[in-house]
């Protein structure tokens, strides 16, 4: 990631003072905790996406970062819930992600006669293999919106996974702890 310390501070601008950001975050935190308590079955009720679209979102998150022998994937990391929360709060994301999922269904219906979820695994792979790469637009200009959508969703899914407990463990980040002395760089031939 190419971002400097001073870029970080650009953030605090927008219109919100840092205090109110924290208050809002705290409030959301309490809300989510309350919801979890109210739904002991663990079934998440989406805030923005319809049941069908949320199911589609989950399928896409799973495809983008699947579980493997080393770790769980985006679903286990809570990425769909994270994406739904952010989308419910942002008109911009509602267009890009909400609109994007509807675009995907309409495109699948046009190409395969059924929604993305109804498609065969082969058809799903075929459409994802197209919209997952920018070069596709040269051959299929009409897939441009899908490429944009997938590019955004890929980043959000990566956020959801790599900032989760299992994602952080998968990366091998082992800090955020109390040390008496900083050990420095371990002896390795590379460094």
């Amino acid at each position, binding site marked *: 990631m190419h971002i400097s310390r001073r870029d970080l501070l650009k953030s605090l601008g927008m219109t919100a003072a*840092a205090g109110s950001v924290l208050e809002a975050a705290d409030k959301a935190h309490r809300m989510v905790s309350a919801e979890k308590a109210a739904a002991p079955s663990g079934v998440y009720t989406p805030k923005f996406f319809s049941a069908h679209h949320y199911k589609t979102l989950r399928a896409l998150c799973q495809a983008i970062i699947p579980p493997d022998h080393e770790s769980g994937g985006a679903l286990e990391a809570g990425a769909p819930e994270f994406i739904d929360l952010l989308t419910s709060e942002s008109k911009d994301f509602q267009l890009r992600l909400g609109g994007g999922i509807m675009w995907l269904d309409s495109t699948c219906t046009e190409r395969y006669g059924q929604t993305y979820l109804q498609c065969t695994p082969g058809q799903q792979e075929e459409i994802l293999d197209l919209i997952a790469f920018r070069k596709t637009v040269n051959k299929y200009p009409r897939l441009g919106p899908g490429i944009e959508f997938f590019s955004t969703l890929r*980043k959000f899914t990566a956020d959801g996974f790599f900032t989760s407990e299992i994602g952080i463990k998968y990366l091998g980040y082992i800090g955020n702890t109390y040390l008496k002395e900083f050990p420095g760089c371990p002896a390795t031939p590379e460094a």
Partner: protein
Amino acid sequence: MPQVIRSPKVYDVCIIGSGAAGGAAAKVLTEGGVSVAMLEAGPPLDPAKDFKEHLWPYDLPHRGGGVGGKLRGEEADEFMAPNGAWEIPGEPYVSAPGSTFRWFRSRIVGGRTNHWGRVALRFSAADFKPRSADGMGDDWPIAYEDLAPYYDKVESYIGVFGSKENIPSSPDGVFLPPPKPRCTETILKRACDKLNILCVPARMAILTRPLNGRPACHYCGQCARGCKSASNFSSSQVLIPPAQTTGRLTLITSAMAREIVLGKDGKAEAVSYVDRTTKTEKRVHARSFVVAASTCESARLLLNSRSTLFPEGLANSSGVVGRNLMDSVGSWGSGYFPQLEKMPSHNHDGSGGNYLPHVYMPWWKFDRKNDFLRGYHIEPGGGRFMPVVQQFDDECDRFEGYGSSLKQHCRRSYGASIGMEALGEMLPNQHAYCELDPNAVDEWGIPVLRFHWHAGENEIRMAKDMQQTFRAIVEAAGGTYSTEVTTDGPTPYGLYDGGTAIHESGTVRMGDNPKNSALNKYCQAHDVKNLFVTDAAAFVTSPDKNPTLSILALSWRASEYLLEQAKKGNL
């Protein structure tokens, strides 16, 4: 007319601002036995509640990205100490046509010291006498020897780690031992050695040993979030508490200073301020005043304090208040290092955090002629810090695709980039200044600042040299330089916009000549002897060193002088 509520009490000193300059003044003055009222525009700070140290991204539902993802792209901002903003609702500022200036302000006890990078560098002897060396700008009315004892006092009290190096451009200080370098820093150090670029342990206001009742750093790499153990320096946790302990400090928060009121005797007698919680006008009376509201806010306060005696603003008979505005010349670059892909998992956090390094490159070309005047230093960042939202945006775009291969690619690239930020000395110029906007006021009815900004040829040539150096270091270290810059346009060679380095200085400068300076060598106004300005507004030049340590030393020195003069009855 709003009702003006007058406080009957007269304090010995009123300090406006609670950051580095205000905190140092409060400590020295209260411990010197005088009563002090301190005005702070923002609320009090409660580290236990306000600092988000040690939280994981998944502890917050937005993972640090903020409600609606608004802070996404800004890295972990939900975790930052409550420190301020580039834009504050109800308190606008204006950039004049053709100028871009960005002004980061804090409204909280401790001000910008709650989040700053803790880089603590002394100015050098040459930094105080640049005109004598190259004919540009002006010399300071003080020399290194005048400030050195105060650097000693400040470092001994707040705690700074570093190492003795005998580098003429970067004087040694009173240092605690530095932490060992991180892997990324080891790689850069080797490259710098090959290129004959100095690369030495960083100098940071972070404790590596217990000091004055504060515990040593625990190496979590989260200084920017605020430190609950106060193992790093902030005015709010290190300077204001001892002042409060004396029982002589009255801290008045949510107090937005409007004007310094002049008495019939030509001396300042009160500060008129807005109590933001009640929107009422209040006054605090004192025998002396220390303006420490930050470079541009201090100039604004003086410019807004007009009287028959000073129609152009208090202590501004010279007309220099607001002029001479400077910020560090900044540029940034990054490289990718395949050898870091293979690093085994290890704890990389350390002291400070990302871009709060354990090593730095002090100005090394001081012994030769360069194609620009003055110098710069470099602060590196990058590596295996705590993952944050947006961490893999670039890799997602570069790699594309999806599935296990994407997942593995992200892990491979994690921590394999190293960035460098260079900060250099800007030459003051007549086109860079701030003034009162003739039309706009803030929500308190106080006229706002309008900024004029201009980067000269010297700044552009310096930024070009920074980019060439970044590339040389990255390539010598076996990496691939990945930053693309333009050679012209509004930000040639990645040159930062004005204000972006958050190192503003120079708007109420000191000097021996009252005709072209506002303050004498003790930060005392030439025009009004019971008025002092002790923040970076007093700077004559903007040496490449980050300003906070020099602000602390200058304010400490001015406060001792104030005490001495007050005792002699000279104020």
